[in-house]
């Protein structure tokens, strides 16, 4: 028992190990490429998004730089046009300047005022909303610079007017005289232009001067003229369009794209929260996580399911294998027992022979003694003689048994002879009739007179019939107990010219499922140890060998009929 349990535990252990390795490979094999594909997909997807996002930011920066630059260039060109189209005296004439200013405003309504300065910095003539004519600007920085450089563009300032503006000034030199024309330009034009930039949720654009002062408003906070609170290390020189990432003081990470303007030390900045810029990253990541969770779940679930199925299947096969092994062992043991029985029967015949001879001698001696008058007739003598006769009878019985065993045990020597079923079948029935009547079974014979001879080994045919009879009796007993059974054995010549023997019982019948398997070796419905499952398959083999066919028809709850069709003897 302990050994048995040990074996079972070992088997369970083996299954567990097998299960682990199958499960492991069934999960890993699809999961590794699955995750690899997702990873590679994610990598390339994010890289391409990053590239395209940065490219679009650079494009916006580039476009806007060009627009602002052309705005500035145009305004400068306006002034230069005026400066070179009119003389100082013409410009100094208020009416003339007013006409020019009106003309200029037609060109661009960004012009707020227009003024003329002489080389001392005196505001000679002025057209605009304020009374600035006559003022001295000789000490002002811008004046000094324009005198030196020839032109000047200021940073944006609020000035007296409290509106953001900047000035453009240009100098003309002629015949030893120098004069300057200056215009104030409202910045709303490019303020709007820059402010209008909107990328995603947080994308914005603004301009800083070289000291980091806002030249345009920033949507996310940062008023005009204030210093940019972010300590961004902006690229220093004319380094083209630059892209970098920076974390601001609130902890938001921004993606910056910047460029310096050509004519003015202004920095155009386009920035967007990184999370916003790469929003697609996040949705892709969520999607990928979702897919990996579902896909991984499906893979793992499937692996568990398949592994379970495989293991169950293996267990079943193992059990079947074991059962088959057991049946084989039983069958071989049975064969061994048969052989042993034959051997024993054979050996018993020798002592029986001696006993027989001794008995013969006793008989002769006894009759001699009686003849010579040495023994008188008496009751005791009669008893003795009766007893000696009994010994003879019992020896006869023993020899009958041993001969029966030997006959059963013999395997070889198939002797094919003509068999007359008319005599043969009743003989075989005679062998089981006793058993049948004990179980209350009525045995009916319907042997047609015209049943022709068949050819075969009588011993084998007897084996087949006895097997069928015994099966039938077992089936009947199982259903009816010891009353009401009926066994019908019939034989006649069939339509196909073959001899048909049928064995019909009114037992429980065979289920259609089992009916297909009845002739299979080792198939049995009897409890373990009761049937070898070989009987019918051997019968089938014998009939097949005789050139015949064996068939079965059965109805559950009605009964079973076995048919044997054999060729007529030639």
């Amino acid at each position, binding site marked *: 028992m302990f050994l048995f349990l040990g074996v079972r535990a070992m088997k369970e252990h083996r299954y567990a190990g097998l299960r682990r390795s199958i499960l492991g490979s069934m999960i890993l094999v699809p999961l590794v490429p699955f995750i690899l594909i997702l990873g590679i997909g994610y990598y390339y997807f994010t890289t391409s998004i990053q590239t395209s996002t940065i490219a679009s930011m650079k494009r916006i920066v580039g476009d806007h730089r060009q627009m602002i630059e052309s705005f500035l260039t145009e305004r400068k060109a306006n002034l230069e046009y005026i400066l070179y189209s009119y003389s100082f005296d013409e410009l100094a004439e208020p009416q003339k300047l007013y006409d020019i200013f009106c003309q200029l405003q037609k060109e661009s309504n960004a012009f707020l005022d227009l003024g003329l300065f002489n080389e001392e910095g005196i505001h000679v003539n002025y057209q605009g909303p304020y009374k600035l004519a006559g003022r001295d600007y000789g000490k002002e920085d811008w004046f000094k610079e324009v005198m030196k450089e020839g032109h000047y563009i200021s940073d944006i300032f609020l000035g007296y007017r409290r509106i953001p503006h900047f000035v453009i000034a240009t100098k003309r030199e002629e015949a030893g005289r120098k004069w300057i024309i200056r215009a104030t330009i409202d910045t709303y034009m490019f303020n709007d232009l820059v402010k209008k930039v909107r990328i995603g949720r947080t994308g914005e654009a603004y301009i800083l001067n070289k000291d980091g002062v806002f030249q345009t408003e920033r949507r996310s906070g940062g008023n005009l003229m204030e210093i940019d609170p972010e300590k961004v290390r902006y690229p220093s020189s004319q380094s083209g369009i630059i892209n970098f990432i920076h974390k601001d003081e609130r902890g938001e990470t921004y993606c910056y794209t910047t460029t310096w303007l050509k004519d003015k030390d202004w920095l155009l900045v386009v920035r967007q929260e990184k999370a916003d810029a790469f929003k697609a990253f996040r949705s892709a990541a969520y999607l990928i996580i979702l897919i990996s969770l579902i896909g991984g779940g499906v893979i793992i679930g499937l692996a568990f399911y398949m592994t379970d199925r495989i293991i169950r299947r293996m267990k079943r096969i193992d059990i079947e294998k074991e059962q088959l092994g057991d049946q084989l062992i039983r069958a071989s043991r049975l064969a061994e027992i048969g052989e042993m029985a034959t051997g024993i029967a054979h050996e018993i015949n020798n002592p029986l022979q*001696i006993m027989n001879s001794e008995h013969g001698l006793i008989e002769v001696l006894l009759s001699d003694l009686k003849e010579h008058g040495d023994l008188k007739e008496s009751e005791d003598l009669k008893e003795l003689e009766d007893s000696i006769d009994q010994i003879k009878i019992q020896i006869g019985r023993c020899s009958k048994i041993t001969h029966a065993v030997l006959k059963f045990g013999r395997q070889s020597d198939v002797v094919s002879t003509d068999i007359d079923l008319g005599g043969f079948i009743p003989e075989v029935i005679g062998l089981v009739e006793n058993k049948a009547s004990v179980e209350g079974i009525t045995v009916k014979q319907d042997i047609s007179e015209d049943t022709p001879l068949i050819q075969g080994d009588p011993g084998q045919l007897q084996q087949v019939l006895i097997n069928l009879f015994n099966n039938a009796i077992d089936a009947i007993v199982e259903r009816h107990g010891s009353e009401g059974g009926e066994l019908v054995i019939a034989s006649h010549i069939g339509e196909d010219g073959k001899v048909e023997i049928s064995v019909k019982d009114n037992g429980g019948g065979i289920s259609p499922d089992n009916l297909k398997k009845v002739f299979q070796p080792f198939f049995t419905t009897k409890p373990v140890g009761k049937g070898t499952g070989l009987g019918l398959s051997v019968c089938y083999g014998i009939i097949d060998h005789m050139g015949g066919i064996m068939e079965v028809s059965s109805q559950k709850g009605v009964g079973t009929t076995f048919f044997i069709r054999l060729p007529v003897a030639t």
Partner: protein
Amino acid sequence: MEKMKMMLVDDEERFLSTTKKLLLKKGYDVLTAVSGSEALEKLRTHNIHVVILDVKMPGMDGIETLKAIKKLFPMVEVIMLTGHATAESAVQGLKSGATDYLMKPTDVNDLIEKAEEAFDKRQRLEEKIRVAQTRSFMKSPRQIIRDTE
């Protein structure tokens, strides 16, 4: 008429002795041998007509002994005594020249009956031989002279 002389060959000594006693009681001349070789030895020294030979014996078995007897003493009739119900050994014996076979356990009366039959057969055969020889005498006296030579 010549009296039948039998020999029983079996490895069971008790069977030999009892059966011998029985046969002697019934008035037959009986010899016994416990092995094939002993049987052959006795055949050489005695004029035996019928041998009852057990098939299964240690050493030289029944069939071997039968073959040897038939080779050395073709005129001796042999009845096989088989413990096996199969016709197998009996058939083999008959093919090898045995006259008949008996199944163990056999009744002494059956044994005597078969032995008598075998003896009759032998007598008839001897008779035939005698007749044939007589004919040849009559045909050619020279033949007789040649035969005796």
